[in-house]
């Protein structure tokens, strides 16, 4: 078996993930390489969610009975865990949402309804990048259409990185918000946060970082990032679906208006008007995803017990190996950085003129799960003149043997359509 420096003890780790034992299609062992879409769930998280429903289920922040108090303590305990995980200065800066898309939409809507100095209107500009997931494009298109603000974006270089050569023309005195991904979901590129944040701060623009592909894979320190908002989702980091996070600087959360109204987010309500609860509750209208938050708390515990530095080191070793092995496959072209430097563990590629759908289908027959298509990042495909890609994405339980299986699988694909 291939040994690489920095690998985790995957033999032990994989025992935590029951699904990885699945056998598909007449005896093919599952090779799960679609982690950028969603990660698998360890027993510890499954148990935490089950135990919540079996022993503590109640609505939160209301009621005085034992279960209500336990459910509230578990839900708020999850907030503490997430706050510590991202090094948030205050637990009150952690807002639970249903996913990263909702977190991003929430910021767009806060700004759309905000008063000065945050207000986005026809005199102002919004900046994103061509590398974004659709969830960090469409909310800004909507905001731009509704307010008249101009939408601008950074383009991409041929090797899959942000082209910051014209940063001073893209981010200007008119810019109100710069929203960009920390790690590309399609190309794996890790973006240079500091350069963008510095320019944004110079012109007084707010910065929102989409950390959906970062939080699961590397230490995330919102204070070090110096952003104003950071969004990510639970289900890509060993947690359940239906739970996302928006972290925001406290003073902003105090100043900015709520978006969704309802129970939980209020202080007092009369028929003509209401006052609002302080953040984070101001932004959590209605019964929140309680069990899912508890599950995310367990996922954070799980990842913390392994250590995010160790996760990052493991994935870097796997990525380095995968990038090298994939380039040995004839006719294979990686879309994005072709080395493991400043790169995450999502690797997109095209294989000759074989359509990714066909690649994915033949790989599936061998038990290998990859993502095919435009990965909700169609502008990237347009930029590189391709209709779609095949994407293999790795996680803390991925092994060099799975990289080998992928490479063998791709040989099979070539023979099949050759």
């Amino acid at each position, binding site marked *: 078996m291939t040994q690489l420096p920095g690998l985790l003890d995957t033999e032990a780790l994989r025992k935590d993930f029951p699904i990885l034992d699945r056998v598909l299609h007449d005896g093919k062992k599952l090779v799960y390489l679609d982690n950028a879409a969603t990660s698998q769930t360890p027993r510890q998280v499954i148990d935490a969610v089950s135990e919540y429903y079996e022993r503590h289920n109640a609505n939160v922040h209301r009621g005085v009975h034992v279960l209500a108090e336990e459910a509230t303590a578990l839900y708020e305990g999850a907030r503490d865990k997430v706050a510590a995980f991202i090094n948030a200065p205050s637990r009150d800066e952690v807002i639970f949402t249903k996913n990263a898309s909702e977190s991003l939409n929430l910021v767009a809507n806060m700004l759309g309804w905000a008063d000065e100095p945050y207000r986005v209107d026809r005199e102002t500009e919004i900046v994103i990048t061509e590398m974004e997931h659709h969830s960090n494009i469409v909310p800004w298109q909507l905001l731009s259409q509704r307010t008249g603000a101009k939408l601008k974006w950074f383009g991409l270089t041929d090797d899959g990185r942000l082209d910051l050569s014209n940063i001073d023309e893209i981010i200007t005195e008119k810019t109100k918000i710069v929203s960009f991904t920390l790690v590309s979901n399609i190309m794996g590129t890790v973006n240079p946060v500091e350069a963008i944040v510095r320019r944004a701060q110079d012109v007084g623009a707010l910065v929102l970082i989409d950390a959906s592909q970062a939080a699961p894979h590397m230490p995330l320190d919102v204070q070090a990032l110096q952003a104003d908002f950071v969004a990510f989702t639970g289900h890509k980091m060993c947690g359940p679906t239906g739970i996302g996070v928006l972290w925001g600087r406290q003073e902003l959360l105090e100043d900015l208006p709520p978006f969704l109204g309802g129970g939980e987010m209020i202080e007092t309500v009369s028929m003509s008007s209401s006052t609002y609860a302080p953040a984070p509750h101001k932004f959590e209208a209605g019964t929140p995803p309680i069990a899912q938050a508890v599950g995310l708390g367990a996922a954070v515990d799980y990842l913390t017990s392994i250590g995010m530095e160790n996760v990052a080191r493991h994935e870097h070793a796997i990525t380095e190996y995968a990038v090298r092995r994939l380039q040995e496959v004839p006719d294979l072209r990686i879309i994005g950085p072709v080395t493991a430097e400043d790169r995450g563990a999502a690797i997109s590629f095209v294989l000759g003129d074989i*359509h990714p*759908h066909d690649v994915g289908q033949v790989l599936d027959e061998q038990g290998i799960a990859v993502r095919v*298509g435009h990965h909700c990042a169609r502008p990237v*495909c347009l930029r590189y003149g391709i209709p779609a890609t095949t994407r293999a994405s790795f996680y803390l339980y991925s092994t060099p043997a799975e990289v080998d299986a992928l490479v063998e699988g791709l040989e099979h694909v070539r023979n099949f359509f050759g």
Partner: protein
Amino acid sequence: MKLDSMYQDVILDHYKHPHGRGLRDGDAEVHHVNPTCGDEITLRVKYDGSRIADVSYEGQGCSISQASASVLNELLVGKELAEAQRIQATFLELMQSKGKVEPDDAMEEVLEDAVAFAGVSKYPARVKCALLSWMAWKDATAQAMGDGAERKTA
């Protein structure tokens, strides 16, 4: 192997050697996309009265979607509209069968090469690939016949 039931030789043959590919003169043109995977087709129909004079197309996509367009061209060009609609309905029925319809002789007579897609109907994610060109044809025909004008995409 199960894969062979999807990737029949007939399908791979149409994929590698498509019939009637390329855009030619037409009465109506539509552009359809499959948003889940990015497959696209631009398709034109040319009618000579109620007879299909030509179906021309240009597109990008997987082997299933491209082969399906080729089969469509081969099957429908030269047919009367009513006959073509019967073929389209039969193909739709087969593709929506979830692999439960075993094509009989009668169906094979109607669908000819298109029966090869029976195996695709077992793969829900791929049914839309097989139907892309057929839905585009239906839409283009509706436009050419004057009912449903202006509708460009599904």
